[in-house]
């Protein structure tokens, strides 16, 4: 079996944060007396990621996703634990390591705002010491994948958010990193642009065999790109496995969408499952996962149906379910 590209063992990262008392009096008091408390941003997380994997890193706001990525990028020193990325201690910040990874944060930009993106690409070429021929080849591939040939010589401030994000990705990938940390790369983008970026990430992974960790609040990103997902909550890992396993374990129901030919009462449908929506001729039922096919058959014999569909709940709903079950356990 291949060696892991990324391995974390019992990673902990705690921060000391200041809690201000409310009001003006609290502000005045804070001049000489401040109350600090420890926040466990990452609390004993372990996992390994292998070459070429795309792993979805899922969690609510403040779960510790970005903190973990910052530790992996060498930006933060861990409170304790062992971390290895491409065989390096990230916080040694060795140039040989930094030339092999890229951190893309959807809310941070590296392009020079008042200059065309091409100027930032050339600057990165110099910083990462990319040879001329390799730079041109990679640039050509990336520009074609993202279809940006006609905008790279326009000032960045004149580009749309989607076009800027495409150029940000190119700037981050010109040195062909083996490991890619993508932190909310599709944030704020419209659905069309989200799809374009997902396709690009998939194509980049295939073309360059890169290992990718992706955090995103859009479950569509994770569902489309990642076979494996790691879910963290309040700094702790609560799931690590195939995305399908989350669906199997946490999606207790399936959705039956019905189109009725004749009017029926809602109470008649409630015998088969939980009625989520009922607006004749349309009805939506939540039914136990294991009995979905059987119930659909019973509905077909009992009522005159124009159409019936059995669907999985959305991945967002399943993840919500997962977090709720974790909260109840806690």
């Amino acid at each position, binding site marked *: 079996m291949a060696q892991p590209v990324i391995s974390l063992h019992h990673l902990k990262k705690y*921060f000391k944060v*200041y809690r201000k008392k409310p009001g003006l009096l609290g502000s005045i008091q804070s001049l000489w007396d401040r109350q600090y408390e420890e926040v466990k941003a990452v609390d004993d997380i372990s996992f390994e990621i292998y070459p070429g994997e795309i792993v979805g890193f899922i969690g609510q706001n*403040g779960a510790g996703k*970005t903190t973990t990525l*910052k530790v992996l*990028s*060498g*930006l*933060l*020193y861990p409170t304790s634990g062992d971390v290895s990325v491409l065989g390096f201690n990230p916080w040694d*910040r060795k*140039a*040989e390591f*930094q*030339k092999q*990874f*890229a*951190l893309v*944060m*959807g*809310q*941070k930009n*590296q392009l*020079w705002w*008042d*200059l065309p993106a091409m*100027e930032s690409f*050339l*600057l990165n070429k*110099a*910083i*990462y*010491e990319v040879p001329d021929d390799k730079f041109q080849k990679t640039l050509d591939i990336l520009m074609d994948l993202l279809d940006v040939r006609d905008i790279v010589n326009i000032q960045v401030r004149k580009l749309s958010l989607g076009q800027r994000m495409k150029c940000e990705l190119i700037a981050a990938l010109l040195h062909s990193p083996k490991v890619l940390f993508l*932190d*909310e790369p599709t944030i704020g983008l419209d659905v069309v642009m989200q799809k374009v970026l997902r396709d690009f990430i998939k194509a980049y992974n295939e073309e360059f065999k890169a290992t990718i960790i992706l955090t995103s609040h859009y479950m569509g990103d994770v569902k489309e790109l990642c076979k494996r997902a790691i879910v963290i909550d309040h700094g702790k890992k609560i799931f690590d496995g195939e995305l399908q396993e989350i669906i199997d374990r946490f999606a207790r129901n399936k959705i039956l969408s019905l189109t009725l030919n004749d009017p029926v009462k809602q109470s008649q449908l409630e015998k088969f499952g939980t009625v989520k929506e009922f607006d004749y001729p349309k009805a939506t039922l939540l039914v136990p996962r294991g009995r979905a096919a059987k119930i659909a058959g019973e509905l077909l014999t009992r009522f005159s149906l124009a159409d019936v569909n059995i669907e999985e709940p959305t991945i967002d709903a399943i993840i919500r379910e997962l977090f709720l079950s974790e909260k109840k356990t806690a």
Partner: protein
Amino acid sequence: MKNTIRKYWSLFWKFRKLRLMLLLEYRGNFWFWTFVSIMWTIFNFFFFDLIIGARGSIAGWNRTEMYVLLSTFTMIDALTWSFFYHVMQEYISSIFDGRMTLTLTRPINPQYLLSIQTNSYTNVPRFLIGLTMMVITLRNGAIPITVWSVLGFVLFYCVSILFVYSIWFIVATFAFWVDRLDNINELVPSTRRVWQAPKEVYTGIVSVIFTVVLPFALISSQPSEILLGKASPYWLIYYTALTFFLFYLSTVFFRFSVRKYSGTAN
């Protein structure tokens, strides 16, 4: 090593080129600030000329010597203002707004990258005014100039630049240690009045502070004294040693402080 030096040198000029391109985008801003800096220089010369005119000399420095000192100050100030003011401003704000993240993930010495990434060109005319005043003063004052005095001047001009950089970088690095320090970048520029007077002006405890502890009074005095043939080797050695020590301290303090960086949350 050779490749690294070549890369660092090439990057320095790439950033200058990018800044020049930005300047050409906003030329109105450039002309305005150039006008302000030229006026500031003219008033500064005028102010000292008035004092020298009234007193004949300042702390034993006659009019010609004072003009050499003011020209040196103008050239040092123009360069430090062009680079360090903007560099440190960018450095400090990048700590607070999280842009430091990018700097720290790049395969290059982060202190170097932070120190070269920006500059302004609005003080170039001030530097030229200082240089012109220096040449005129040396010619009119009939001060004997040798190759060694010019080389010594250039060398100690660079030492002074390194001294200002080191002090300024150390001060700016304190931004890692507090949640917000809006005015920290104004601390070093606020001492500029001290730089432009001869070190003999200061007496007693003030002299100890400004020539030994924090020798801001040596910044313009030492290069000027070399040109005027009145430099003391003891002061030169002390100033050089202290400057290199401060530079070393700035690198150690930066490496230590950067561990405090957490970036901004998403």
